[in-house]
């Protein structure tokens, strides 16, 4: 696979509360032969606080970073964080559509943004640019006990007109990637339901209720682990799980992993390298049964041998 | 190519046709004029040299019976276009092709000999030698080449039944519509003033139209009719402009670029320019060139349900 190179925007939380997401992204993309150039002098994406105050301002905060990408002579910016992503995409789109708005925003910037940058999520470039096949090739380790429910959250692919990625109601990118690295995926109805997002502080009860639902539905679907692509979802589902149990009288104990961590494990990185030990809910019991992927293949071959082919006759009758 | 071979060719086909159209000397040595040959003895007066500028094909749609015609490379596109438009029955025409690398612009020669009477004209190698009462002037052919020859790609005709001479390759750079692209560099205002200036000189003599091989309406031209009444006879710029627009639009996708219109214009108006512009656009839009392939359809008389090159225009 050809060497790829991307400008990388970690975003604030990946340097703090979700540092393990950053670690695992760098490990996995590294293994996939992707070179990450961290956007130098990157600043806040403007996400939630800014646009609730002023759209022009919010766009400017985001566009500053996009302008920096242009300055580096690049046209693509990738970020793991869906909130940053949507901030970039929204700013870019509105500036493109509305010339007056573009003027207004650029007037706030030292370096005007020319509109030449496409922002993509890490999930999107792994799924689309690198591709299932390349991802599968790198697998070394099998995780037989893992049964995941992929949870996409609300904004990584919505609104479709802005995000232009995957199916807005029934996204499949993570499902396919998990399957590609040999993980059992459960059919999960709550893929894009709301986890309560940033209301954790102001409306804790509501967030607990919503997150509880997501966790309950995951168990419902037969999963023993949630896989996420958004560190805010992760916070609500992992960090707050005990809180949920307390307030809702539930007793969830459901590990929540970033999809890059799961891929990382199958690539043979240790849980520590991927920062899995940083999580609140311990995933170790689920993943300790790690074994070389060859073993699984052997096992399957034997299974195949075991059951003998159906008689021709039957197939006529069937249908 | 030698005049003998041409005369042979004419003699050879004369029995099969009612008339052969060629050239002979006109009112002075510097002018050739069309010559209608029906008797063998006329053949000796037949001439062939760079003075033979006229596009003789223009007569074909209006002649009944079987006709022979002497055709230069550039003129042969006219034949092809007639075939496309079914204006001639090819089998009734005997085409005598003549290889040709250039003709000369009589106007340019006249200028060189500052409008003296030409007593003798001779061609030696790459020069034309004109004897006037005052002097004998040797002019390099290249210096008196008409515009159309500068980008000529058809040294040998596309269509012929007999080729009088050896087929030769064109030796000019291909038409790249340079002059059109150059002109389009001017501002709108400059372009507008340019055409107003040019067309203001028009005296509506209709020479351009009458010389045009594709103007098949001739005496029924709408420029002079009252029903339909597209233009009045008033001599103002608007009406002149309108006439030239009619001429150009009627030739859209049909103009074979023979340059007759410009050659015959007594006021030196670059009337071929607009047609060339249209030809350029149609080549780009429909990949079509008039007078090249007999099986083509002129683009204005056909369509595609999905037009690859035409995009919807937004406001």
């Amino acid at each position, binding site marked *: 696979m050809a060497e790829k190179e991307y400008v990388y925007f970690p975003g604030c939380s990946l340097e703090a509360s979700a540092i393990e997401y950053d670690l695992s992204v760098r490990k996995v993309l590294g293994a996939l032969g992707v070179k990450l150039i961290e956007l130098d002098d990157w600043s806040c994406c403007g996400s939630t606080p800014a646009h609730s105050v002023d759209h022009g301002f919010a766009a400017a905060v985001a566009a500053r970073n996009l302008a920096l990408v242009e300055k580096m002579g690049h046209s693509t910016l990738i970020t793991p964080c869906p909130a940053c992503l949507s901030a970039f995409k929204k700013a870019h789109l509105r500036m493109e559509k509305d010339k007056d708005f573009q003027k207004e925003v650029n007037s706030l910037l030292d370096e005007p943004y020319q509109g030449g940058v496409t922002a993509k999520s890490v999930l999107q470039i792994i799924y689309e640019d690198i591709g299932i096949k390349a991802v599968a090739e790198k697998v070394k380790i099998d995780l037989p006990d893992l049964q995941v429910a992929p949870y996409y959250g609300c904004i990584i692919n919505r609104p479709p007109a802005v995000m232009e990625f995957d*199916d*807005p*109601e*029934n996204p499949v990118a993570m499902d396919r990637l998990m399957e590609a690295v040999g993980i059992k995926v459960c059919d999960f*109805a*709550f893929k894009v*339901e709301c986890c309560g997002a940033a209301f954790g502080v102001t409306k804790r009860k509501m967030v607990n209720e919503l997150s509880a639902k997501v966790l309950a*539905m995951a168990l*419902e679907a037969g999963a023993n682990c949630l896989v996420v692509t958004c560190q805010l979802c992760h916070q609500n589902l992992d960090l707050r799980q005990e809180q949920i149990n307390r307030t809702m009288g539930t007793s969830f104990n459901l590990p929540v992993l970033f999809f890059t961590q799961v891929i990382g494990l199958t690539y043979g990185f240790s849980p520590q390298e991927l920062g899995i030990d940083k999580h609140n809910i311990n995933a170790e019991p689920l993943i300790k049964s790690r074994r070389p992927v060859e073993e699984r293949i052997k096992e399957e071959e034997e299974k195949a041998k075991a059951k003998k082919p159906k008689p021709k006759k039957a197939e*006529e009758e069937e*249908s | 190519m030698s005049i003998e071979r041409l005369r042979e060719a004419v003699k050879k086909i004369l029995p099969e046709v009612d008339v052969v159209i060629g050239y002979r000397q006109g009112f002075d040595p510097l002018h050739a004029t069309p010559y209608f040959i029906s008797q063998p003895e006329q053949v000796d007066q037949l001439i062939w040299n760079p003075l033979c500028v006229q596009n003789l094909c223009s007569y074909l749609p209006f002649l*009944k019976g079987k006709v022979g015609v002497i055709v230069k490379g550039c003129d042969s596109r006219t034949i092809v276009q007639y075939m496309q*438009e*079914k*204006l001639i029955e090819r089998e009734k025409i005997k085409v005598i092709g003549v290889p040709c690398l250039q003709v000369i612009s009589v106007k340019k020669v006249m200028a060189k000999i500052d409008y003296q009477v030409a007593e003798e004209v001779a061609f030696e190698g790459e020069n034309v030698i004109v004897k006037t009462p005052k002097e004998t002037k040797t002019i390099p052919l290249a210096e008196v080449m008409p515009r159309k020859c500068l980008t000529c790609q058809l040294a040998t005709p596309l269509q012929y039944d007999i080729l009088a001479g050896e087929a030769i390759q064109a030796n000019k750079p291909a038409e790249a519509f340079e002059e059109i692209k150059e002109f389009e560099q001017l501002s709108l205002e400059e372009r507008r003033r340019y055409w107003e200036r040019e067309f203001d000189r028009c005296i509506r003599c209709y020479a351009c139209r009458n010389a045009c091989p594709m103007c*098949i*309406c*001739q005496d*029924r*031209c*709408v420029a002079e*009719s009252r*029903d*339909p*009444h*597209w233009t009045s006879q008033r001599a103002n710029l608007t009406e002149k402009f309108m006439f030239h627009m009619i001429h150009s639009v*009627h030739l859209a996708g049909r103009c074979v670029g023979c340059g007759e219109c410009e050659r015959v214009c007594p006021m030196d108006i670059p009337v071929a320019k607009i047609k060339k512009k249209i030809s350029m656009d149609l080549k780009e839009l429909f990949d079509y060139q008039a007078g090249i392939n007999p099986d083509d*359809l002129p683009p*204005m*008389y*056909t369509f595609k349900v999905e037009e690859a090159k035409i995009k919807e225009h937004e406001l």
Partner: protein
Amino acid sequence: MRVGVFICHCGNNIAGTVEVAKVAEEARKMPGVAFATTYMYTCSEPGQEEIKAAIAREKLDRVVVAACSPRMHELTFRRTVEKAGLNRYFFEMANIREHCSWIGEDKELNTNKAIEAVKIAVEKVKQNKPLFPSRFKINKRVLVIGGGVAGMQAALDCADGGLEVVLVEKSPSLGGMMARLDKTFPTVDCSICILGPKMVDVSQHEKITLYAYSEIEEIKGYVGNYQIKIRKKATYVDWSKCTGCGACVEKCPSRNAYDYFNFGVAPCRAINIPFPQAIPKKAKIDPKFCRQFTKGKCGVCAKICPVGAINYEMQDEIVSEEVGAIIVASGYGLIDLDKLPEYGGGRYPDVISGIQYERILNASGPTAGHIVRPSDHTEPKTIVFVSCAGSRDKSIGIPYCSNFCCMYIAKQAILTKDHIPDSQCYVFYMDIRSPGKGYDEFTRRAQEEYGVKYIRGRVSRIYPKGKKLVVKGADTLLGTQVEVEADLVVLATAVIAAPDARILAEKLHISYDPYGFYVESHPKLRPVETNTSGVFLAGACQGPKDIPASVGQGSAAAAKVLSMFSKDTLESDPQIARVNQNICVGCRKCIRTCPFGAIEEQELRDGRIVAKVIETVCAGCGICNSTCPCGAIQLQHFTDNQLLAEVNALCLT
């Protein structure tokens, strides 16, 4: 030349924003205008009398009426001037209502615009020539496209009126959507019981030729004389032999064919008869599933068939018919469930469409009328109906209302309660639309007698939870979130144009709206006519419609055809191309560009070749006119000089 100009107030519609008196005053100054006046309602009878009187009194030889759109009243006024002894084409209309008074706010500008509109009309009318229609014979047969209830009604009415009818139905049986319904609202009587007899009448009527499982291949010609090519699709069963005994269906080993009639509620055999009351009741093979075609071996049906009707080599067949008029009743379609992902459409087996539920309710349906869940064939106790599933939803390009969902949901809820007394139905709705006769009473019965719970609000999503489906939505009356755990969810999927509606429209040269429904020639006054004379509309192909409306339109279309055919000849529109053979140079460009092949070569005595227009074939588009270099061929009433006069009126000022 003495032109008379009549400016209409149209009550306040025009006079409100246009100074009509000023327009008349200016009109009087225009060269050639001998008389100009204003009138309150020019189209009214006294208004027309006024015109006639003025023509006589003022010796007018041309008339201009400045009023509404010519598409509205041009014909009216042409008749008026004709009654007054002028040729009807010595008349022009200036549109100062739709194109002026209704769209401009500034009275001064409107007035001036109206004055110029009059000026254009005056200049045009001065160029007008008298034109005289010729008459041509018509073929008094009618083609009906579509064998649904609207098409059958139209066919029966025409046939009873003595016309020969050619009825073309795309599917293997008559009946259309109505044949699939269980009961009909608001009377709750059995759909097929009232439709069946109609189907029989159609099949037995000696004046009706039925082509089932056939489609329109090509339509040529013009009003009064159409040539139709019909494609009879291969059924692989010789219908002249097939008795409809069904033995083949019994024995067919391929049991997983898609059941089009039942909208895939359950699979059917590769050879099948769509439903018990089908007409014609003949079997047909679906080669997509038949093993003889997929695997190249089987032949069971051929072996079993007592009359040897099976023919695997059968090919499509093209038959020609000639008719004088066409009634289009091609019906409607429904959006696919998977267009509604937020409702799990297509993903969850127990989320079904309204029409699928009809089949489940239906005694002759795949479940023999027992209400069961497609997933596990258990009886559902809680059923949720979601109205406007796709309808009134700009986001998927369907802003319109599907017309009859509110009613059939109420009906289905009532039927559900009848089938399963201990069941509970919920209906999520935006508004209850029940304007028909007895309709609102019906929806109230559903709520009051049958205890159907109506929740006003939209459903945001549906997701499975164990064996159940959780329907999550808002109750906008209580202002709360609601979640209903349902066993079965029925989506009232939006009505859309039939799949091939656009293709058919292009064959018919009729226009369709942005959604593919056919456009009637006037929304109020000409609801079954199209802008193509001789082509009429019936049923839901023109827009979502319930049964009574479709039947009504079917009869209306039939009446239009009968009245058109009450004469033996039709008047040909004289607004066609005419060649001035003295000018024509015979370049044949018009012949090449005419879309109708209405121009042919003609050799004159002097051997000149010129163009000649075939009057009955020319449709009057004028392409030839703008193609002809010397202006020899002119479209009458839209000649170069007439259009130039209009241009000059505006430019040479």
